[in-house]
């Protein structure tokens, strides 16, 4: 029998309910407001009063209204049919909702319980299984979707019976399992899981040891993210966060991409809705939308559901990870989620932490990031969730609680700089402020040197060094003037500009340049470093810039042409020509000075 309560207080979407029975923290309940039922979650209990946050508008709600507690936490429905869907933060299928405007109290099924799927059995009668063991697989788009032993099952079970190959719907029982006492349990293709609890259906979670290729040079080359790693992108508005995220979701080497659009602009989500079904997945040739799921809680949708949306997204990612897939999870923006926490904390009159955020903000963020990772499954296969969150720091100031809390847990830091965005140097990831802790992992370094190039990590650190020295030279030039510094400073600056233009900058809107393979990145980095290793001879500082602009142009044209194509080779030759000029000039000067010396002698 469910606990029933009565509303006794209302402050915006915080509602206080007096109950007689038991209620639990994070328990879901429904307020019976007229003909509609408004979903809410318990966030605090004092005596017989439960404080609940309502996932909908509370307009018109009255004291005395009945509330029914459901005896479970907010759950995600997991089964075939999740891919390509657009859900709201509570996993309602947005397409199934009626009307142009969202009606409160309208909840729709996340998956189609009656739709038949082509089904292939994987386990057999008598098999010993545990939570997460694969029983069968069905075809969901092109993904082999595994039907697993529900994650809620504890201990070992035996397959008593299982259906053979055929076509079944998610609601049908496909297997019967028995526990050690011989008690039988029916298993369907669908299971439920509380979103705030991590799914731990894995045997081991090692340190990440390989990188996730994103096709974005400034990330892969300079600050790679590990498969199963975590990263975050803080940046002021207008610094290109959204374009970068979209590009990541298009080009990263992941089986599935899950996007949590958390408290951001609706038109940006519409852009994904409109473009992804049309765009080709560069890796499979299928449509991007087939491997994408979107959890949309735009900024004008109810605030409490915003908090739920990131957990729903993470739970779906964990579900697919248990099938042995590589998942990329993007959350834009985690700051809006933190603000949702702040609004509730404020309404509950909790003592505030820094900037009014709740005191446990750091712990909440850390917990969430820790759900990502590379895991080994019970059957020895592996799966991963790579998580990248964006942060929208107030006033672009990185010394604010959300950025600082995230910095403590995320291992990659991609700092978007306003200056780079203003000068249209995209992606505006600052090469000096950003970092990837994974570069310091010996296992990652070993992996990189083995798979890309034996000198890879050394080259990367060298490139970073050149960028830093270039920046220092630039500052000197700015203070002392073009004429006030040795020519060497100009060369040093332009060598860093070379790396900036050729490696760091990348045209997300160009078909070819938008994504660069590791092979190609290796080639370009080596070529660029060969040039920065050269000695140059110039008559004046003006010549330095003019000359390097030609070198940059040749290399950029290479970035714009198909790798190892005829056009690519043509541009390679052009580069060679430009470089040879300098060589000859240098030799001539060397000759000249030799003659002079001879004359002197």
């Amino acid at each position, binding site marked *: 029998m469910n606990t029933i309560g009565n509303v*006794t*207080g*209302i*402050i*915006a979407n915080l509602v*206080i309910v007096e109950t007689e029975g038991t209620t639990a923290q994070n328990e879901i309940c429904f307020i019976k407001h007229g003909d509609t039922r408004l979903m809410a979650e318990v966030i605090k209990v004092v005596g017989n009063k439960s404080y609940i946050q309502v996932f909908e*508008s*509370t*307009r*018109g*709600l*009255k*004291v*005395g209204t009945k509330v029914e507690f459901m005896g479970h936490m907010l759950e995600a429905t997991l089964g075939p049919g999740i891919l390509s869907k*657009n859900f709201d933060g509570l996993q309602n299928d*947005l*397409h199934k*909702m009626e*009307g*142009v*405007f*969202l*009606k409160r109290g309208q909840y729709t099924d996340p998956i189609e319980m009656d739709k038949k799927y082509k089904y292939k059995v994987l386990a057999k009668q008598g098999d010993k299984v545990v939570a997460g063991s694969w029983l069968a697989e069905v075809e969901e788009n092109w993904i082999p979707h595994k039907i697993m032993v529900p994650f809620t099952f504890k201990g070992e079970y035996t397959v008593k019976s299982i259906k053979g190959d055929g076509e079944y719907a998610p609601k049908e029982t496909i297997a019967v399992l028995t526990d050690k006492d011989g008690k039988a349990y029916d298993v369907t293709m669908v299971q439920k899981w509380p979103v705030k609890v991590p799914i731990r259906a894995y045997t081991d979670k090692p340190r990440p040891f390989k990188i996730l290729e994103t096709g974005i040079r400034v990330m892969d080359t300079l600050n790679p993210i590990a498969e199963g790693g975590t990263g975050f992108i803080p940046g*002021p*508005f*207008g610094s290109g966060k959204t374009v970068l995220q979209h590009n990541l979701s298009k080009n990263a080497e992941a089986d599935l991409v899950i996007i949590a659009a958390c*408290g951001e*602009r*609706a*038109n940006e*989500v*519409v*852009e994904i*809705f*409109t473009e992804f079904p049309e765009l080709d997945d560069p890796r499979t040739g299928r449509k991007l939308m087939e491997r994408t799921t979107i959890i*949309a809680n*735009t*900024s*004008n*949708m109810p*605030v409490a559901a915003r908090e739920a949306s990131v957990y729903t997204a993470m739970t779906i990612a964990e579900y697919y990870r248990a099938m042995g897939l590589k998942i990329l999870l993007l959350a834009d923006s985690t700051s*809006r989620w933190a*603000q*949702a926490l*702040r*609004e509730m904390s*404020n309404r509950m009159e909790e003592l*505030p932490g820094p*900037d*009014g955020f709740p005191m446990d903000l750091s712990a909440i963020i850390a917990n969430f990031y820790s759900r990502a990772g590379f895991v080994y499954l019970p059957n020895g296969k592996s799966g991963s969730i790579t998580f990248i969150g964006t942060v*929208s720091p*107030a*006033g*672009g*100031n990185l010394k604010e609680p959300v950025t600082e809390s995230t910095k403590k847990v995320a291992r990659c830091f991609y700092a978007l700089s306003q200056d780079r965005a203003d*000068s*249209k140097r995209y992606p505006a990831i600052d090469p000096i402020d950003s970092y990837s802790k994974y570069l310091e992992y010996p296992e990652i370094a070993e992996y990189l040197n083995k798979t890309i190039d034996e000198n890879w990590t050394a080259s990367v650190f060298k490139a970073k060094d050149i960028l830093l020295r270039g920046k220092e030279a630039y500052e000197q030039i700015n203070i002392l*003037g*073009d004429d006030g510094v040795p020519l060497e400073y100009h060369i040093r600056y332009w060598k860093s500009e070379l790396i900036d233009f050729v490696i760091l900058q990348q045209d997300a809107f160009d078909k070819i340049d938008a994504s660069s393979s590791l092979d190609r990145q290796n080639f370009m980095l080596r070529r660029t470093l060969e040039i920065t290793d050269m000695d140059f001879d110039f008559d004046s500082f*003006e010549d330095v810039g003019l000359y390097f602009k030609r070198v940059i142009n040749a290399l950029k044209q290479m970035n714009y042409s198909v790798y190892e194509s005829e056009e690519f080779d043509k541009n390679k030759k052009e580069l060679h020509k430009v470089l040879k000029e300098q060589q000859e000039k240098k030799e001539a000067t060397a000759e000249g000075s030799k003659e002079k010396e001879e004359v002197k002698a």
Partner: protein
Amino acid sequence: MEKETKAFQRVYTKLFQLTKATVSLKAKGIGNEELAIVDGRLAQVVKIMDDMVTLQIFGGTEGIATNAEVIFAGKAPSLKVGDDLAGRFFNAYGEPMEGGEIIGKEREIGGPSVNPVRRKQPSEFIPTGIAGIDLNNALVTGQKIPFFADPDQPFNQVMAMVALRAKADKIILAGMGLTRDDYLYFKNVFDNAGALDRIVGFINTTEEPPVERLLVPDMALAAAEYFAVEKNEKVLVLLTDMTLYSDALSIVSNRMDQIPSKDSMPGSLYSDLARLYEKAVQFPDGGSITIIAVTTLSGGDITHAVPDNTGYITEGQLFLRKDSDVGKVIVDPFRSLSRLKQLVIGKKTREDHPQVMNAAVRLYADAANAKTKQENGFDLTDYDERSLEFAKEYSRKLLAIDVNIDTNEMLETAYDLFSTYFKPEEVGLKQQFIEKYWKNKS
């Protein structure tokens, strides 16, 4: 307590608590966000604790006595909508300023949001004739974009101009803390342009209580939704000034003892602003709501909570700046940004539009660098000199807000300037465009 009222109304006369903006009293059966009249002033329920109801009084609580009469309306705030709205001006409560009634049906204000999967991607260009906007920061229907401006800048004038030229079916003006002078200015401009029948105004002037402002954008957007959804019209909503609206939010949150966050603004500022701005939408049936707002800055500071949160919500921002070299107010090409321009430029406008736009801004940036060099006493190269000359003409003929030409003319003007001061290779346009459009003026 004996008073003749309608059946659903309940009347109370004993106030328990009074603050500058709120009153509390014991009452039963009251709905959250329900409207009430307290001593003749409009109020709304903001908090209910058992039988203690707290009301926010929009007009302020000056002079309200503890025995004031409180009548609950049994419904949330709403606006009567109908074609009858066109050509009229209303106060913050949606009552016609010149008196009279509205014929129409009630529409709840601050209603639910549009299902994101029912939106259409914005794709219709809004020409304004101002090159600083059309050429560099093209506006699109369904977009939301504010002017970030200091109080002394002519943002209201520019906004009125944009509104009149935008070919919208309806222009809805939401004036929050508008000076009476500015209100009359808007009225005159629209009247002189013969556009009054397309205008609907919801006005809170500085003469009226600040908390009243909180109703204004919701009223305006409810009217906008009526025209866009039910009449499939293209609606342009002007919100001026959102900083004053936010100030009113902070006053109320302060009176309700909420913990302030950055710059004394309520912690929910982002959600409060997003709720309004996200009403901008392109509907699949052709109707649209486009929002142009004003956020006044203090001393150009965009890190203040209001412009900062706004920047994260809106699709770009427009900056006005006085260019002292040519003595005109221009649309700053560096700091202004329209995030949706990619959806129309070069697609709905001429093919070379994106390239010309970028090239001109790049050259203008070169001029800015040359200027810094000049100010620091370094020698200028010939290129520096030419870019400085170019910048002046670019400012005068294209960036200035008094420009009124169509997009093709803007592009032609740009080529005129390019060819006067530069060689084609210095401008860096695609070869095909140079062949097609570059004019040899030698």
